[in-house]
């Protein structure tokens, strides 16, 4: 039997790595990937609790988190495409001014 804390520990480490990715990376797409890592770590926590406490609500919530992640990825990538079209760069450090 695997203790619940092992799953939670893995999820915590994954979440941290995702957060660090968002902080460290300067490429807009890489930051979006970091956000996806964080969302997946949260999903893992939810599913762990749902399974160990035998509550279906956790898995329903994961379903909705996935849907929202899909919507967010689509719109986020559309914004990244627009950013690239206007500034020719994906480096967020060079996109700090509101006007070009």
């Amino acid at each position: 039997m695997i203790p619940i804390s092992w799953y939670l520990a893995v999820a915590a480490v994954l979440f941290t790595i995702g957060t660090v990715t968002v902080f460290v990376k300067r490429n807009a797409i890489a930051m979006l990937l970091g956000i996806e890592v964080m969302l997946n770590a949260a999903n893992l926590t939810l599913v762990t609790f749902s399974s160990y406490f035998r509550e279906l609500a956790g898995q329903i919530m994961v379903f909705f988190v996935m849907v929202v992640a899909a919507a967010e990825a689509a719109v986020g990538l559309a914004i990244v495409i627009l950013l690239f079209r206007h500034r020719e760069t994906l480096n967020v450090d060079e996109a700090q001014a509101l006007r070009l």
Partner: protein
Amino acid sequence: MERALFLIFAVTAIGAALNVLLRRHPLHSALALLVMLGALTGFYVLLGAYFLAVIQVVIYAGAILVLFLFVIMLLNVRAEEARIERRPYVRWLAVPFAALLGAEIIYLVRVFEENPSPSGTSVGVTEAVGRELLTTYLLPFELTSILILIAVLGAVVLARRERR
């Protein structure tokens, strides 16, 4: 047996997440994320959430990541170049925060020592999830479909080329 599988999936997931962080080309990061999604699918199956495991592959790996790959390839993204850190003092924050993370994990292990075990039938079969989605959680279900519609419209409008 279960512990061996858990260990394999855990090492794969954390290694892949580290690759997402450490790779310089966003394409390699995206592929590392794909590996991480695979490891998470393994976790979900171990936890008995069969429907979610397959949905994870279908939606996350099969749709969202493909979208990422398309954008990376269409925009011809280059690898990041090494830069000089402009704020070198930030690295000294790493050790305290890592210690904080370690302390939190140890706290988790302590709190959940008398943990309930997920033995017996799993709660994640498709029929149960579907029934809950369409009865108790019907309103959020319909709202998310509207959300997806808004997202699709938004993405199409945002990324469209101006027609003269």
